[in-house]
């Protein structure tokens, strides 16, 4: 296959993944905005900020609805992945989101490149370690922030599952987990996700993949070289 026969673009995320992502970031933004004031309630801007969201009572309701929606979105995603496996989706080193030893080598390689100690950039598969970090951070967040948030939103229901010996300290711990990990999630998204998908040279103002689901062959070649080689071995040989 020569370069001429290559498609102009390929699909990276199907419509289901794109909808899941839209629900994820909408609820994420709502949760960040409505929950933020509770992190530092004693400072003046917090009371002002929470009034924008309808006051603490309304903000609390928005927060709970958004939180439950996000958890359902997450469960849908996991269930959908399960469904794809039953439909024959295969795990391949070059296309998987699962972290592999190679990712660590890529991290080191990339740092060396940043520092000018390596002339080449690492070649990534469908998901670079940057994407994998971004993706699994959501799983971490769902586990810590999602579960603690659920217990705080439905405390009477949740209390029946806590063993007797935890009752003296579990609630303050859950609150700290929810609050500190939420701060981590917000700052992580601000730096990692915004830089890599919005601010990076060639991406600004954003990568449009979230809407179209498509990636151009040019971008595929440069940003996902190993996936390109895997998908179009003939063309890759010609390069």
């Amino acid at each position, binding site marked *: 296959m020569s370069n001429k026969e290559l498609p102009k673009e390929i699909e990276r995320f199907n419509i289901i993944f794109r909808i899941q992502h839209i629900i994820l970031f909408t609820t994420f933004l709502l949760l960040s905005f409505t929950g933020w004031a509770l992190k530092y309630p004693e400072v003046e801007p917090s*009371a002002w900020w929470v009034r924008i969201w309808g006051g603490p*009572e309304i903000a609390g309701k928005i927060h709970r609805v958004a939180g439950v929606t996000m958890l359902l979105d997450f469960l849908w995603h996991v269930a959908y992945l399960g469904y794809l496996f039953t439909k024959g989706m295969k795990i391949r080193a070059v296309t998987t989101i699962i972290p592999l030893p190679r990712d660590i080598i890529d991290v080191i390689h990339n740092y060396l490149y*940043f520092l000018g100690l390596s002339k080449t950039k690492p070649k990534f598969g469908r998901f670079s370690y940057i994407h994998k970090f971004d993706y699994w951070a959501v799983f971490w967040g769902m586990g810590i922030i999602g579960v603690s948030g659920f217990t705080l939103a439905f405390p009477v229901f949740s209390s029946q599952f*806590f063993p007797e010996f935890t009752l*003296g300290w579990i609630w303050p711990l859950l609150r700290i987990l929810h609050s500190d990990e939420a701060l981590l999630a917000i700052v992580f998204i601000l*730096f990692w996700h915004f830089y890599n998908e919005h601010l990076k*040279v060639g991406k600004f103002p954003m990568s449009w993949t979230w809407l179209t689901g498509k990636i151009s062959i040019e971008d595929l070649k440069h940003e996902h070289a190993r996936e390109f080689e895997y998908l179009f071995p003939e063309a890759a040989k010609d390069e």
Partner: protein
Amino acid sequence: MTKFFFAVVIVALLCVPAAASTDCLICHSAMQGKMEGRKGVVDVHIDIEKFADSVHGDFQCTDCHMTYGTGPHTPPSGDVPADVAELIPFVSLKSKIDPVAQSACVICHPTIYKELRESVHGENIFVKKETDGPLCLDCHGSPHYIVPKTDENSHVNHANVLHTCGKCHEDEKIVEKYDMSAHVIEKYKESFHGKKYILGHKKVPICNTCHGSHNITKWDAPDSPVIGEGKVKTCGKCHAGATKKFAAAPAHKYIGKENPIPYYGEKLLILLVFGVFGFTISHVLLEAFAEIRDNVFRKKKGGHHE
């Protein structure tokens, strides 16, 4: 000039809808500041507008200041009802300024007064004969200006309760003297309920929601609403279906070394947070630096970013 001023005030007051209180208020609305009396320093000023707007606005002065009926310049005299008279020695412990008037609350509020006398607050005054512990005015403010508790100016309005209770419960001398739990106001502010309260949440529980008000008990009293079965009931007021297991949650326990798991848990989390920040921020900054270097200083031919 001063005479003219008084004349204006008197004329103005006579225009106020007739009430016998006007006789007293002619002077007491115009008089400013405090005066040294035989029994202490008295604030002689009455803000008539605020008084008229208060829940007691249509009272006669002598309804409470009942021994001042004969005129302003004669010593107080006259009969006092037995239920009021009985309170006077106790009220006098706290304030010598017209204790008759300060005891007169009982005439209209006998049930609440009884509750208060039996509470841990009342016990301190009526049994232990201490000078600390709140009577009506300490929480509700001056009876001349009491407004319904739904009014945000009320000292016992939801938004002001923390401050009102804090007057004593944040006072280190009082806390030490009676061996009360220290830093309770601060602890509450640190709690989940407290954080929402500070943001202006109107339904979140505040001191009296759980501890009660006139009928307040010591926290570990047998009929306390904040331990055992009482606490389950108290939590259930808001958290429908609250169980003993649910009520075991600490309402406002300090997040400090006294509760080591959350305390050191938070320290670990902070370590994790900074670890992740360190990685992400260094990565982003270095990558941005590399991009700039590549695009500005090493213009590659035929490269991806031309």
